[in-house]
């Protein structure tokens, strides 16, 4: 039994120390995902949400997949749920806000080439989700379609859109 596997079992039995070790092992990936999906301002809180939810759901982890895979799925669900609710909130309470689909990706006057992480943050909602899931996290379009409740064709077109927007940013 590996240390991580043992920690998963101990944590599922309520051992917070073991869960803390799991946290330290996995927090870079979860936090990076959060940063890319929801932005740096909210990444800390969402990361905490992921680990708190994982703690509460650990007894449902059957060990069929690696713990990292299970945790990653939990994280994806938390991020997507959060983005969805934020999007609905914007629609309802901030109708005058500029729609995300029209976000100006590159300020007209800038000549500064921003780095990849910063450029990802500027992507509009769906394009950002698809890009992170496909190009960074390695999900396939049919998987993304299921996760985001969109057609696979939409996932492909959003991915291309994201790449073109990033090209515009990164080659400025």
């Amino acid at each position, binding site marked *: 039994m590996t240390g991580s596997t043992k920690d998963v079992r101990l944590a599922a039995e309520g051992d917070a120390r073991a869960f803390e070790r799991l946290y330290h092992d996995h927090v870079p990936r979860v936090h990076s995902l959060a940063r890319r999906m929801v932005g740096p301002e909210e990444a800390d809180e969402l990361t905490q949400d992921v680990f708190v939810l994982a703690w509460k759901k650990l007894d449902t982890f059957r060990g069929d997949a690696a713990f990292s895979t299970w945790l990653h799925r939990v994280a994806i669900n938390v991020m997507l749920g*959060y983005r969805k*609710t934020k999007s609905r909130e914007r629609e309802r309470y901030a109708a005058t806000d500029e729609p995300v689909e029209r976000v100006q990706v590159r300020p007209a006057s800038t000549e500064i080439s921003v780095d990849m992480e910063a450029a990802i943050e500027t992507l509009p909602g769906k394009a950002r989700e698809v890009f992170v899931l496909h190009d960074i996290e390695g999900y396939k379009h049919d998987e993304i379609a299921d996760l985001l409740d969109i057609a696979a064709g939409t996932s492909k077109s959003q991915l291309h859109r994201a790449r073109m927007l990033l090209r515009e940013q990164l080659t400025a």
Partner: protein
Amino acid sequence: MSEHPTERLSAYIDGELTADERTSVEQHLDICADCQGVLADLRGIVVRARSLEDRPPEHDLWTGIAARLEEQPVVVALETHRARRRLSFTLPQMAAAAVALIVLSVSATWWARSGAERGTDGGPPVAAVQPDAATPTQPASLEYDTAVTDFEELLAMYRDRLDPQTVATVEANLAAMDEAIDEIVKALDADPGSTQLYNYLTSARQRKLDVMRQATSIIRTSI
């Protein structure tokens, strides 16, 4: 020269074109320096994306997580400041509140049951939701917990001044919404990875928040 196949370059990179489409794109690329440049840029982006390194948060988050792991349900002290004056709502207020609560409650229950059974979308339109609404099985949400606590305190504070029938209506409908939420929680327990159930749950709790918000508004404007 044929039309620039820019829209198909991502699919080309990802190997998702048919043989004919691929041939067509390649024939264009052979003679179009612009598209060659775009293709090179896009490939570079894909490579850079795959090589991004994960970084830990700037601040350790464990302390906050540990505190939340030990969180206990909030016990609300309900006494303080019970008002003496009895509140009475106008008939339109009463009617509006009752109708809104009943409609929301019934639809939430139906929606939760049907959603949990089907595991798919199809319920009534969902209301806007709080960014981090939470449930007992979801990440703790200070905002949600605070809203519930505030409402319970408000209701307790002015219960004596409210029409008993109004209080009963509010409480009965909130109880029905709690029942709907509980059903989704059970479904989530059985399928914790379900994004849709997670979203159902978030929306159900938002409905409860909306109802509490409406009731709070009525109470505050009536005292």
